[in-house]
């Protein structure tokens, strides 16, 4: 549990650094993806359970399933959130393609408003 949280802190810092400091549009999108992955990690770690099993009922564990399984609700939420993240990334990358067509570069230093 603790190592998950430390990894999460590391991921969030890398993500924010990527978004703020990198000058390349695609790298900014990658940073955004890393940051979102940190949040997915946090969300799924709220369902953590010591020695838990996957939330799938099979014939062998019908009766005592709920006593051992991990929390299924955060997994469902993460599933939804991943699709949303995919949509945002797809739209962002297509905007980056259009920006490349206008400016012939992906460098924010050579654009007007995206500086800094």
């Amino acid at each position, binding site marked *: 549990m603790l190592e998950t949280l430390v990894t999460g802190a590391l991921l969030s810092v890398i993500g924010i650094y990527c978004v703020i400091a990198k000058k390349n549009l695609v790298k900014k999108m990658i940073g955004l993806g890393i940051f979102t992955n940190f949040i997915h990690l946090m969300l799924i770690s709220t369902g953590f359970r010591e020695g838990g099993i*996957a939330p*799938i009922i*099979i*014939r062998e564990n019908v009766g005592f399933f709920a006593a051992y399984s991990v929390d299924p609700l955060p997994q469902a939420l993460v*599933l939804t959130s*991943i*699709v949303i993240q995919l949509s945002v990334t*797809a739209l962002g*990358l*297509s905007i980056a*393609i259009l920006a490349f067509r206008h400016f012939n570069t992906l460098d924010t230093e050579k654009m007007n408003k995206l500086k800094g």
Partner: protein
Amino acid sequence: MDVIIRTVTKGIFPFILLLGFSIIFHGHLTPGGSFPGGAVVASGFALVAVAFGLKGAEKLISEETVHLVEGLVALMLAGLILYESFVRKYVGLGGGFFGMWSSPTVLSLNVAGGLMVMSALVLIVFLVVRE
């Protein structure tokens, strides 16, 4: 692309589709479901688009077909989800647990969602490859 990739694609494409639809249809029994399965199917079409170019991929599934699938599936999803899960009401639970027909609601919604994800991703891949 060169001949090796084309040949491998021809051989492997049906199996990718099979795997994807198997994941979709077993969504209520095993891990996975609509989104992973739909993504696998779409990746099969993306592979064809890479190997044979956009022309080859559009022979398999044209953009109009994708639009049509998306619209129909959307109507189906809206109907299924919004109106008090009528499958559960009128079909009920079909037979014993742990079987293919144990959960008609989740099965039908999984298929609809999988087709939706597939069509959306195929459309995105087509549009970006066309650039």
